[in-house]
């Protein structure tokens, strides 16, 4: 899995994100109050303006302190009933139609169908639920205000805070129910869509021991299955008539047989090992150059994407991962080492063979190393090596893995490329230990929890916008929030001037003059003014990127891990078969709460200030 940015531990993230959040909230609150004071001053004078602001704030505090859970529950129930009346659950029908026709667009014959299917269902769910929550939340209050049914509610009496909170909760409950149903159907779709078996005829098999003809029993049979879903498997069937296939497209099958002689029939079971939720233990990566000296990173072999660095083959260049927190109890059978190494050949070499590499294990404290273990590099596939508990050191003496090589829970793994003129490429997540795997279903649920968090945010935004905008405008505003949420990282890059071609004003200037983005503009008064405008705009963009939740994917994205609005998308983890770290999910929940609280407050204050609520 590609992890361009490593999520921070919870405590470290909180220490950076919380102050930023407080600053942003404080700045927004101050700006809002200042704006309100200025507008009120223009209307009524400064004295009255100050009085209005004070009464608003004190009223708001009273309001919030006296929120009734019973009334909130009643309003939430009302919101649920209203949603049912609007037949919002028809959206489930839309989702089922999408799934029904999805098979036209998804090819199970592709070389790795599991990530494709999982990405599809998670993405389709995300878009559908967010759009549905958008429509549900944005039109409700404006419709009530327009039809004057809001007066029936406010005269109950019901506080504005309860109205806003009730609607947010009510719509969230509806969307949560729909999300749960979608999740269930998604799981069924993926499992059913990838379910398949193969035909295996006796004529496809040959006996390995040549003393017997196929079908006589007592011999091992090998051969290939018929193709299904664009692949076939090599099979090995033991004398007892059972066996298994090799791994193709990330799965294998069990084989059973019945009958004897020429009537022998083979049954290939359902695919196994397709769905994973790996719980990796990552290490810290460091490099040595071809002279064996430490260096910050490896070589760039000319790739535009610099996620991976490369080490020279046949030299002292190496990549070392340092693992921490290793516990012998977690590895009763040995150390499962998984790696995904890239290969770059500067010459063809032996085409028939893959490039050879080796790794050693080292005690970080004593420097004692194991003997080198060789491996053939496998690209775009996970190479699973199991380091035994008892092995040999560099001199051939028997040693114990945890006794001699792991010191205080730390262990180093150093990797070499053995072929001169060839290169191995790696990034930190490309090697990890796999003490155990989590439950795929639980991981899928966690993926849906991240979608649920996004839905909560859109619902809250929709209700907030609708407290002071009419239905269509609130919908547009929520839609803009939604779209911006998917491009927050781009906004941040624009705000930090990391995008080639300059800021928005410069981009318009280049478009008008058909100037390429790679051409430096001449330093004239005009370009100076344009760049000055963009400098100001960038401040706004940086501010705006903190005001909108981040709906990007975590996997495969570069982001600031210290920011409080970290990406909410976890589909990459689920699709690639990696467990979503619980700490990451907690961070996302806290980030959601960081938005929900101020959104609720803004919505409540806006509704309070309207005539209908007074």
């Amino acid at each position, binding site marked *: 899995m*590609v992890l361009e940015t490593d999520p921070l531990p919870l405590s470290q993230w909180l220490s950076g994100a919380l102050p930023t959040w407080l600053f942003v909230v404080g700045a927004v609150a101050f700006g809002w109050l200042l704006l309100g004071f200025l507008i009120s001053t223009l209307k009524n004078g400064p004295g009255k303006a100050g009085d209005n602001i004070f009464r608003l704030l004190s009223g708001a505090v009273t309001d919030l302190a006296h929120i009734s859970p019973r009334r909130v529950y009643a309003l939430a129930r009302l919101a649920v009933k209203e949603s049912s009346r609007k037949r919002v659950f028809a959206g489930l029908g839309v989702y089922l139609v999408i799934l029904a026709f999805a098979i*036209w667009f*998804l*090819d199970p014959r*592709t070389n790795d169908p599991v990530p494709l299917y999982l990405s599809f269902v998670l993405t389709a769910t995300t878009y559908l639920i967010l759009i549905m929550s958008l429509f549900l939340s944005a039109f409700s209050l404006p419709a009530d205000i327009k039809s004057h049914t809001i007066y029936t509610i406010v005269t109950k009496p019901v506080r504005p805070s309860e109205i806003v909170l009730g609607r947010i909760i009510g719509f969230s409950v509806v969307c949560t129910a729909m999300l749960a149903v979608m999740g269930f159907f998604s799981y069924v779709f993926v499992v059913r869509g990838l379910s398949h078996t193969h035909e295996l005829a006796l004529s496809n098999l040959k006996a390995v021991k040549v003393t017997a003809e196929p079908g006589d029993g007592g011999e091992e049979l090998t051969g290939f299955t018929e*193709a299904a879903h664009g692949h076939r498997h090599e099979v090995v069937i033991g004398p007892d008539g059972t066996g298994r296939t090799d791994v193709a497209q990330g799965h294998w099958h069990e084989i059973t047989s019945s009958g004897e002689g020429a009537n022998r029939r083979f049954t290939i079971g359902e695919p196994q090992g397709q769905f994973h939720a790996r719980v990796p233990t990552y290490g810290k990566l460091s490099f040595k150059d071809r002279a064996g000296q430490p260096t910050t990173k490896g070589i760039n072999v000319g790739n535009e994407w610099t996620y991976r660095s490369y080490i020279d083959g046949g030299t002292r260049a190496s990549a070392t991962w340092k693992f921490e927190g290793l516990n012998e109890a977690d590895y009763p059978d040995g150390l499962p080492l998984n790696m995904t190494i890239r*290969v770059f050949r500067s010459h063809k070499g032996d085409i028939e063979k893959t490039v050879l590499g080796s790794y050693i294990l080292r005690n970080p404290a004593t420097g004692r190393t194991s003997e080198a273990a060789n491996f053939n590099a496998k*690209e775009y596939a996970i190479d699973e090596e199991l380091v035994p508990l008892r092995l040999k050191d560099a001199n051939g003496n028997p040693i114990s893995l945890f006794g001699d090589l792991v010191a205080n829970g730390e262990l180093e793994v150093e990797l070499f490329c053995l072929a001169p003129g060839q290169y191995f490429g790696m990034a930190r997540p490309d090697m990890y230990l796999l003490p155990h795997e989590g439950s795929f279903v639980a991981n899928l649920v966690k993926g849906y929890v991240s979608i649920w968090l996004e839905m909560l945010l859109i619902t809250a935004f929709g209700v907030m916008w609708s407290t002071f905008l009419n239905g269509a405008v609130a919908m547009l505003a929520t839609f803009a929030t939604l779209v911006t949420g998917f491009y927050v990282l781009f906004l941040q890059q624009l705000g930090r001037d990391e995008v080639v071609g300059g800021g928005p004003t410069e981009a318009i200037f280049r478009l008008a003059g058909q100037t390429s983005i790679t051409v430096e503009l001449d330093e004239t008064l005009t370009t100076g003014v344009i760049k000055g405008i963009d400098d100001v705009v960038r401040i706004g963009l940086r501010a705006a990127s903190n005001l909108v939740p981040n709906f990007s994917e975590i996997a495969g994205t570069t982001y600031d891990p210290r920011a409080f609005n970290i990406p909410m998308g976890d589909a990459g983890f689920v699709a690639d078969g990696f467990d979503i770290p619980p700490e990451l999910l907690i961070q996302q929940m806290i980030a959601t709460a960081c938005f929900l609280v101020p959104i609720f407050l803004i919505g409540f204050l806006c509704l309070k200030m309207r005539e209908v609520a007074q």
Partner: protein
Amino acid sequence: MNQRPFVRKMIYLGLIAALLVPLSLLSMPARRGNSQEAGSKGGVLAQLRDKNRLSQANLGEIDPTSETIKLVTLGLRGIATFALENKATEYKLKEDWTKLKATLEQITKLQPNFPSVWENEAWNLSHNISAQFDDYHDRYYWHIEGARFLQDGIRHNETAPRLEWYLGWIISYKLGRADEHLQFRRLFREDTDFNGKRKIEDRDNWLVGREFHLAAEDMAARHEGRGVNNPLMFYYRAPMCRIDYAEALEEEGVLDEKAGAAWDVALRDWIEFGKRDLGTPDQSERMDDIPIVRQQIEDLYKQLGELPPGDVPNKLRAEKRAKLADKEIASLEKAPDSRTLDEVQLATMAEQKLALGADEVEKAVDREHRDEARKISTKVDDLKTRLTKLEATRDHVNYDYWKTRCEMERRPDTLEARRLTTQADHAYKVDNDLLAAQKLYDQAFAQWDAVLKEFPTLRRNTIVNEDMMVLIRKYRVLLDKLEIRELPKDFPLQDIITAHPTGQ
């Protein structure tokens, strides 16, 4: 009550109803008939579309998936395609091949009737993505994915022969000329999924690629040559596949009658290719016409020579030749395929200097015959232009070289020379029997000498010379190991060594 609005509305409705009649005549869709009822040709537009083969159904299969995805983009197909292309670029950058392939499929579903889109995305799969993999099995897989992609594209674009041609290119050239072509050819033979019911002995990538090239030619013929931008390169691949097949057989050690037969068939197809008209309806262009055009030019010069005062062209040429430098004359007198690069340049300049212009011929002829002289000269100029074009076409595909090469390779003595060479290589590299290898090399060189004596143009050809020099260098290293420092004085291919730029 004011009835004017009502009357106005009635008039408008009447006009709308009246307009429906011509609208219907123009845009009524065509309907296919069945056993129950006859079909309908539809309105004027439908008939025009059918006549000019512009409707989507004329282009190929209509895919419901494609139509659905186009519909749901609600007219924003261009924007959707742009967004998908950006996504594809990102996936390619981040090496996410599964999602890249899925995205390419979405792009083609949005634009199913643009052959260039299919071609471009097939290129992405079989060239760009395959090159990213280290294991040749994976590279082969992505080459075939590109081929399958094109097969899908062909179903949607039955009037685009370039897709079929490109499919043939991937199967023949991409597999057959790769560094790992031996491995690819083996995998292709074993690939039952792609080859289907094709017999194992017919699963040669060159021959199968040729089938696709021939299918492309059939498609082009059915559509009056539409979609063929470069006829030379389009029609050249099918006969070239035969030649490549014969070469591949010999590389794999097949040096018997099968190889001879393969070269035989290759020669036949190559000669047929030379007879093919690659020109336009107004001007034919056959490489085989070169001798005919040359003869026509000679005949016209004879006619000019008969005009008083007589023998004008030869006299004019003699005068011009007298003004040429010695080097230029020497280069002209040398055989074209034995000229060095400098000599080729000198000969070209000399020929330009010797060329007779219509004006100078006209002036040299008696006044009363000048009109006739001008007409003949003009015809000569036109024929020379045509000849230049034909020669360029021929040189572009190295027509003469491959024709002579096929004639040489199909002979039993050539096959014997190759067998001896292979045995010598085996004795040297595998058995490490240096003396036996030396003997076999000597026999091989003698045999090559005899063969190349029959084909002097090939003996002087740089490609053949380089192949011989590779052998000779290997032989030299072998002799060195036997502590023999010099080649034998009567070495049969000494002239090739002497003619080589390095001289060794």
